[in-house]
């Protein structure tokens, strides 16, 4: 019995170890991209130095980038010289046609904290309820939300961050498409 337990422990450790190691930020010399013989690898800022002090997350850069702004840990400029004012929008779009997955909430607030309206409108998304044909196939191919999510913003492994409307949540879709509250 003992040896079976020991074997199981060993297996668990062997499986868990790479997962735990994956929590670390790779140094530039070990990231598989930077040439360790290039002087830059010793000069450029290391990811761990910059990212370990920001709001933690479990995916992507292991940083909750929206929280990092809200907590005042970073204040990324909205223009090259930092001049100008930022426009925020609070409306949330509910997308109820998600088959067996929970409906999606699109939060304008978090997005406008990171970018201007022109990033999406009107080239990527039309500012009109029901006017945008979004589906997971497109997103997985890097279109629509997938242009950023899965590439730079939190990855597509995090289903329930978008598909986050619970069955008892007070959501009343007014059409086959989206509800726009707070307007």
């Amino acid at each position, binding site marked *: 019995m003992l040896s079976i337990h020991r074997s199981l422990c060993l297996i668990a450790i*062997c*499986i868990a170890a790479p997962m735990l190691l994956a929590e670390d930020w790779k140094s530039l010399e070990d990231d598989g991209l930077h040439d360790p013989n290039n002087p830059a*690898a010793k000069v450029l800022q290391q990811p761990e130095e910059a990212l370990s002090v920001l709001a933690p997350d479990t995916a992507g850069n292991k940083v909750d980038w929206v929280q990092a702004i809200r907590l005042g840990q970073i204040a*990324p400029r909205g223009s090259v010289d930092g001049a100008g004012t930022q426009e925020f929008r609070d409306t949330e779009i509910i997308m109820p046609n998600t088959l067996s997955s929970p409906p999606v909430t699109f939060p304008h607030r978090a997005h406008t904290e990171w970018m201007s309206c022109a990033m999406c409108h009107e080239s990527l998304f039309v500012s009109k309820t029901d006017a945008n044909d979004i589906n997971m196939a497109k997103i997985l191919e890097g279109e629509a939300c997938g242009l950023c999510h899965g590439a*730079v913003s939190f990855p*597509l492994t995090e289903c329930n961050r978008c598909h986050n409307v619970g069955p008892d949540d007070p959501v009343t879709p007014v059409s086959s498409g989206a509800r726009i509250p707070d307007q």
Partner: protein
Amino acid sequence: MSKMNRIVLLAALGALLTPGSAIRSEYADVIINEKAEAEEMSPVIFSHWFHRIRYQCSVCHVDLGIKMKAGSNGITMDKISKGEFCGACHNGDIAWTVESCDLCHSGMSGLETGIKGSHQTTGPGNY
């Protein structure tokens, strides 16, 4: 198969199936090697994490017009020197100049242009 062999096999399988167990770059690092190595320079490694600490997405992707597909922008040193693309900041005022070749051309040889995934995904199209 002996018990030890079974353990080794299972451990190896576990390591293979565990996301992020392979050596990978930081999430969203971009390799730009459309022209670099053909012109005897190392590939460029652009780190999104470094830049987004300092600038919002739309500064580069709207104001500077940098398209969100690696390799689709036709960036050249000539354009950068004239203040386009990276040159909007890498001009000695905001960030280092084009004289610091190594700091951008810092990639290993043979890398293909593209955006790299992370600990948990291997990036768009590969997910």
